[in-house]
């Protein structure tokens, strides 16, 4: 059921090649992560839309295999 942090990062980068992604395994159980994603692609999008872009990149794993991913999105300064 669990997913590796590297797998999460790879999926996000595949969809958002310019993204700076950091993934932290919060509980050490491969199931509770926090991710920070910084990408130019988020510019002009609402937070909901930004998170939807990341969820789309994870292709359905979020809410399924991946129980908890605390997400923070932003655009580069």
């Amino acid at each position, binding site marked *: 059921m669990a997913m590796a942090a590297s797998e999460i990062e790879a999926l996000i980068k595949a969809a958002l090649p310019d993204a700076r992604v950091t993934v932290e395994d919060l509980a050490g159980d491969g199931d509770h992560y926090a991710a920070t994603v910084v990408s130019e692609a988020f510019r002009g999008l609402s937070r*909901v839309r930004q*998170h939807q872009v990341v969820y789309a990149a994870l292709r*359905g794993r979020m809410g*399924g295999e991946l129980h908890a991913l*605390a997400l923070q999105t932003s655009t580069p300064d």
Partner: protein
Amino acid sequence: MADIHSRIQGEIDQNPVMLYMKGTPMFPQCGFSARVVQILTHMGVPFNSANVLEDMELREGIKDFSNWPTIPQLYVKGEFVGGCDIVTEMFQSGELETLLAEKGVGQKTGA
């Protein structure tokens, strides 16, 4: 799916602040749901909630409705605001208070 979507639409139209969560405000059954309840309660915002754990059709339907894979989900005046991360971020930055004030669903006046 059409039925559950129209039911959700009806609920978010009728309830100015509507929270879809796991458990109830008194007994949240997930830390993320608990956090959103805590924020709304702290702000003194009256809200209604639905427990998705009691209703499988709702649990799946709500994700499809908003194209959002997780619960909790907060709706204000029929508009999807976000899940736990977004609500927390908006609360910390003061944006949530602004949004609620703009939508006319701020704190209880006590009047």
